[in-house]
């Protein structure tokens, strides 16, 4: 049943333009460092090897969080408001399964967009830039193949805090009455989180957006400790907001 629901969610998503628009935006964004490298002599020069990790910063901290809010607005807030959420429910789907299928869709889409950013970065980079062997990032030197596999690993790791974040948005999506306000609120939250991260090192570890750009994990002092903190914080957010969302959807009177 969960699989059929997931299939339905993906079907609806792929029939809409939004996902494709974001793919175009990501592609466009990857071209910016390339254009800078090419035409602005004397400023930063990007290399193919490390371009994906540079791009992870804006993709994971900006583009994907906004897309998450648009997706949740569509799948949850607007579906509830427009009365289409009940369609699965009256066909015997449980509320828990319905919520799980939407969260699985989020995870799938986040993973897809993250990997898409990486793929586009490598492809567009290798067309226009030098590889810049050896791989050099945050004072760390790696062989090219190790560099690529670390990049993939870091990209996949960013899915974890992004998923935790998407659960916060899911909960808000159940609470708010319009998709538009959800997107607005999400942008506000991202903005506030980023300001707080920069202002206070005390609250920083508790702010989920601090973990989106996993590039920081790649440093000479090793990643183990940082990884534990990333997993713990993400896990806590995930559990708390999963609980709140489940409680909300189970108790809700569906009157639309």
């Amino acid at each position, binding site marked *: 049943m969960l699989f059929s629901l997931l299939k339905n969610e993906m079907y*609806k998503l792929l*029939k809409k333009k939004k996902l494709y628009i974001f793919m175009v935006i990501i592609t466009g964004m990857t071209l910016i460092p390339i254009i800078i490298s090419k035409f602005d002599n004397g400023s930063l020069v990007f290399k193919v090897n490390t371009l994906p990790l540079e791009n992870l910063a804006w993709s994971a901290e900006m583009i994907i969080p906004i897309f998450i809010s648009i997706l949740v607005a569509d799948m949850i807030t607007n579906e509830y408001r427009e009365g289409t959420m009940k369609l*699965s429910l009256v*066909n*015997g*789907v449980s509320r828990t399964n319905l919520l799980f299928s939407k969260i699985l869709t989020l995870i799938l889409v986040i993973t897809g967009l993250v990997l898409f950013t990486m793929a586009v970065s490598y492809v567009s980079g290798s067309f226009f830039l030098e590889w810049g062997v050896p791989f050099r990032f945050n004072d760390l030197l790696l062989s090219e193949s190790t560099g690529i596999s670390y990049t993939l690993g870091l990209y996949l790791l960013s899915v974890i805090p992004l998923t935790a974040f998407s659960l916060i948005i899911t909960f808000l999506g159940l609470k708010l009455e319009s998709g538009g306000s959800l997107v607005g609120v999400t942008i506000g939250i991202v903005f506030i989180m980023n300001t707080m991260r920069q202002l206070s090192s005390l609250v920083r570890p508790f702010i989920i957006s601090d973990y989106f750009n996993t590039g920081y994990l790649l440093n000479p002092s090793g990643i183990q400790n940082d990884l534990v903190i990333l997993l713990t914080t993400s896990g806590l957010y995930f559990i708390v907001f999963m609980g709140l969302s489940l409680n909300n959807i189970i108790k809700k*009177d*569906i009157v639309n």
Partner: protein
Amino acid sequence: MGNKNILEIKKLKKRFRDIEAVKNVNLNVNKGDIFGFLGPNGAGKSTTIRMILGLVHPDQGQIRINGFDINKDYKKALQYVGTMVETPKFYEYLTGYQNLKLVANLYKNVKHVDINKSLKKVGLMDRGKSKVETYSVGMKQRLGLARALLNNPELVILDEPTSGLDPQGKKEIRELIQQLAIDQEITFFICTHLLNEVEQICNRVAILQDGEIISKRFIKEEENKKWVEFYTSQKSEAEIMLKDCNSIFDLNISKNGIQIFTIESEIEKINQQLNNRGIKVKYIIPHVESLEDYYLKETGGHFNVI
């Protein structure tokens, strides 16, 4: 009254903050019924339907579909239910066919051919491939009905099924409902304002007002059954006596006495029984009032007859 109950509602209550939407609804729908659920705006019809479907949580009461409690056996209870709640909602950017496909995906045994069969039944076969955003209100209504029929339901719950349809469309949907009730033995629970609709197709009605059922009765004079009113002042004695009588299919206390729905040939016998027990019957009046008269009388007249 014999038949197996497909839908049983007991002591149903629901309050939204300060509005008591449903007060104390008790209701049984038998297999094979086309049950009309009538009532003025805001009576609590849609809220009752939402509770039957598990969308709104009742404050109190019990709902069983096919013997399964909607709270405990949600999936089993809804397995053979088809429904259309108020104006049917769709993913407008998808075609009619694709919208039905999303529902079909939730059932193992509903296939491509069933989707087409359903579209055909409601006369939408040639528009199945257009996006729903291009549909008229009436076409959406039909598509809603097609969706309700998709999982081969035994019970179909419809909220205002003909709203937005032209007279020809209304007639077609009524005929479709009657045909499905006969050919596929589907039980219908229909919520509507349209008295003439209920009169034409329903065999039983319940009238809801301010969240309470104020009256229930059979309306089809099936076979040789008839409504008659016994004028008597000893109403409650008469009720106690006749309540368990096998040849009486429905019974209401009325202003002047007691109304019963019974077989024509039994009327004289019932009269004698009453007399034997010392209950004085002044007159026996056969009922010829239309549902409209009846309705207006029961609800105190504020009802839109369309």
